[in-house]
């Protein structure tokens, strides 16, 4: 109802009341000059324009009790007018309030005011008539209209009684003749036997800025219904225009789905323009099915499915320079220049009209030349739904100043855009032609400041005419992890090598020691003794056994026994920790060997026995050496 009232209000284009202009600021108030119903929203607009340095702001609207005010919604405005080559520019704001009256009567709203610098400028008081609910025709009040001239059926119900007088509102009863089912309403399978809401988008893979039409249909199997408590589908990543809003009662279509006949109606149609690429979400729309046959203890609330659209950018290949993402549609451009002859420093007006369907761009590519300045354009537009398509025009009014005399070619206005029909980029071009600029004898040469000059010099750069050789390295040497291994690995390798060499030399030394060691020599002497014993040579065997024993003593205790007397050797062996028994036996054997060596006779110890005894002593001594080493370790 509210939106209908707003639309009606805007269509009626209310009264424009110029109030006054003080200190170069004018405040104009605009509202519809007709009555409104209680609870019906209407808009009140204030335009405050100033031509001085101070821009109006902080708009306020005082209202009497019983009015609810929302807003204001603010917009900035720039108005440029050129008359005889002289340009005047005004800037300001427009503030729009949405007002709802809660009791009937005639009321004075306002006066609205704006702040300009440190003072407030006010506009005119608006007189508004609020009438009781239901007293205005449907087209005005958003309510079923009462035709005062329909003598027998003032309510338009066909019965002469108000709707619902005999129970069911006839407008909510089944239509008499089912119309043919449009393709868009056909559904293969009903997701719910009672009611459901279905959302459909097309196209499914749009580009940024391409129109996507979202249609939402409601289906009910218990007869016609009303929409209540709707929650609109969220669409944050889209610019949205409403094509169909609300549920028009007479558009129900009977749709057979399986064995059930549903009553279907399109409840929303939105033209959406994706604002960015990626996976963009359209949320579910939720509504409560309301009507005599839908009154349950639990309300019948249904939602459409959420939709995810895969939005891409138009291709990079073939993209013309200056293309702005989102400039998509089917467009035409025309432009005119006036006047064609001016004095240097004055301005011409260039009016360009961009017309077509889709997301009509907000800017054009301007020709740029030295000595020609293009000021920001003033935009006027009329864009809205026409059928299912967003269509309209946008007019760009430019003020173009020419500073240098002569024939000045203004160049051409261009606009690259993506055409979804052709699936290709198109570029609109409009040549603006030449204007004649005559010299201005009163022109003043701007003075320059030396400091500014120095700064200008630093910032006055010339472009590089040709690109110099350049290679883009994908990665630096430090990107490779092996760099760090090598960095720390090299010294570590050297240290390891040194350690290995040291260990090798140590091993080598020990091997050499082992070869010349007394224990090894003792074994060698035993082998010599064995050979001599095999030949039954008593003296040689005894000499070898004696040598083996002394070497075993040296290996076991570190004592060089040959340098000691027998008694001294005995004490030394005991002090070295050898068991006394071992010492005694060893000394006895040494005695035996000594006599055998000198006499050449065995004296009770034949060479094999001598050898056997020697082996036992040597083994015993060397065992003692191992025990000693173990203890030392």
């Amino acid at each position, binding site marked *: 109802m509210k939106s209908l009232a707003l639309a009606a209000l805007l269509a009626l284009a209310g009264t424009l009341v110029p109030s006054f202009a003080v200190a170069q600021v004018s405040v104009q108030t605009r509202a519809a000059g007709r009555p409104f119903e209680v609870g019906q929203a209407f808009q009140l607009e204030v335009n405050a324009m100033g031509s001085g340095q101070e821009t109006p702001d902080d708009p306020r609207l005082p209202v009497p009790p019983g009015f609810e005010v929302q807003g204001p919604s603010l917009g900035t405005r720039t108005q440029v007018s050129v008359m005889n080559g002289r340009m005047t520019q005004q800037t300001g704001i427009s503030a729009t309030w949405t007002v709802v009256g809660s009791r009937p009567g005639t009321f004075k709203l306002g006066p609205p005011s704006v702040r300009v610098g440190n003072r407030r400028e006010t506009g005119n008081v608006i007189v508004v008539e609020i009438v009781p609910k239901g007293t205005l025709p449907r087209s005005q009040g958003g309510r079923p209209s009462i035709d005062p001239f329909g003598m027998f059926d003032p309510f338009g119900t066909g019965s002469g009684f108000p709707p619902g007088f005999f129970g069911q509102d006839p407008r909510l009863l089944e239509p008499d003749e089912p119309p043919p089912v449009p393709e868009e309403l056909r559904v293969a399978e009903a997701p719910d036997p009672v009611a459901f809401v279905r959302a459909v988008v097309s196209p499914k893979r749009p580009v940024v800025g391409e129109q996507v039409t979202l249609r939402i249909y409601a289906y009910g199997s218990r007869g016609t219904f009303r929409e209540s408590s709707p929650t609109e589908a969220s669409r944050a990543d889209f610019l949205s225009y409403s094509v169909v809003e609300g549920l028009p009662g007479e558009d129900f279509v009977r749709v057979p789905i399986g064995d059930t006949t549903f009553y279907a109606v399109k409840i929303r149609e939105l033209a959406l323009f994706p604002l960015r690429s990626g996976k963009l979400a359209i949320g579910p729309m939720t509504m409560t099915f309301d009507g005599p046959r839908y009154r349950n203890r639990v309300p019948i609330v249904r939602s459409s499915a959420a939709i995810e659209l895969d939005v891409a950018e138009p291709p990079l290949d073939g993209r013309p320079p200056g293309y702005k993402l989102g400039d998509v549609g089917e467009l035409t451009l025309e432009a005119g220049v006036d006047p064609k002859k001016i004095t240097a420093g004055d301005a011409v007006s260039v009016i360009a009209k961009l017309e077509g369907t889709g997301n009509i761009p907000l800017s054009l590519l301007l020709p740029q030349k*030295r000595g020609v300045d293009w000021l920001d354009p003033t935009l006027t537009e009329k864009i809205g739904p026409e059928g299912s398509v967003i269509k309209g025009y946008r007019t760009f009014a430019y003020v173009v100043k020419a500073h240098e005399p002569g024939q000045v070619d203004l160049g051409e206005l261009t606009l690259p855009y993506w055409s979804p029909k052709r699936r290709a980029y198109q570029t609109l071009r409009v040549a603006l032609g030449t204007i004649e600029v005559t010299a201005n004898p009163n022109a003043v040469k701007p003075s320059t400041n030396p400091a500014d000059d120095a*700064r200008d010099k630093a910032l006055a750069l010339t*472009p590089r005419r*040709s690109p110099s*050789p350049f290679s*883009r390295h994908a990665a*630096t040497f430090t990107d490779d992890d092996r760099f760090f291994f090598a*960095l720390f690995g090299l010294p570590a390798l050297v240290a390891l090598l040194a350690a290995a060499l040291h260990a090798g030399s140590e091993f080598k030394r020990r091997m050499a020691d082992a070869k010349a060691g007394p224990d090894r020599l003792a074994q060698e002497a035993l082998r010599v003794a064995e050979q001599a014993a095999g030949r039954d040579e008593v003296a040689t065997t005894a000499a070898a056994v004696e040598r083996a024993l002394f070497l075993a003593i040296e290996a076991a205790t570190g004592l060089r026994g040959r340098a000691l007397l027998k008694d001294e050797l005995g004490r030394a062996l005991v002090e070295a920790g050898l068991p006394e028994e071992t010492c005694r036996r060893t000394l006895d054997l040494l005695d035996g060997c000594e006599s055998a060596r000198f006499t050449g006779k065995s004296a009770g110890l034949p060479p094999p026995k001598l050898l056997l005894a020697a082996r036992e002593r040597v083994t015993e001594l060397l065992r003692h050496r191992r025990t000693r080493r173990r203890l030392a370790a």
Partner: protein
Amino acid sequence: MKRVPLLLALAVLTSPWLAHASDDGGFREAVQAIEQGAYGDAIDRLELMADRGVVHPDVSFNRAVAYLGRARSTQKKAGDLGRAAAGFAETLELRSNDAEAERALEAVRSELSRAQARKGGAPLFARPRLARALVGLAPESVWGGLAVVGSFVLSLGLVLRLLVRRAGAVVPGSLAIGIGSLLLLVGGALTAGARSFRKTSTPAVVVASEARLLDEAGRPLPVTRSGEGSVAPEGAELHVLEHQGGLARIEWGGTIAWVVRGQLRELARP
């Protein structure tokens, strides 16, 4: 004949650029547009080259010149000087020894700083974190080279100390071990730091009038009187750490915050 290998090497080095140049051919037209004062046209052409993935210091330089030209013309748009600063900074990222770009960047920053001072806004430069400041003292390759030298000196010292068994090698060996270890540790740590910063963050420049610093939920950080810590001014150089939807997590000086992604221009790197 002697020049053939040289020409071949030149062709190989410039082949990435030539591949793109043959596709676009927009470079010369952009230069002509700048010379005719048609900065918007030049910007459109050079930005299109960037969109197509052309990365070249001279393209970045000319783009900066075009933005600078527009900023000084009657067609100027908010953020033009910031975009010029971004172009020159990108030129230096790609070719660090470009003296002209360095001078131009300095001049643009001075201009931006003056404008900020007039407005009483936040300063253009924020004191960086100590680690980033240390790493930023020299390029990553210099730190890498230092670490390599340190590694070799340390290795030499170890050879002298451990493998050469002459008395005269002890002192030089010990000295080399000390100096080499120091160079290796310092160079290695700074190389690792520079590599980590390079891989985890991208330099960027604010190309809007100012970039409001936000928290993770997109709420503005508390405003300070000078704007410091709550706003990054136009032309401020910062580092982007990650993206999340339309926001970018940035490091500006010691501040970590979020900003709207469209207010930044991330710089291409070699």
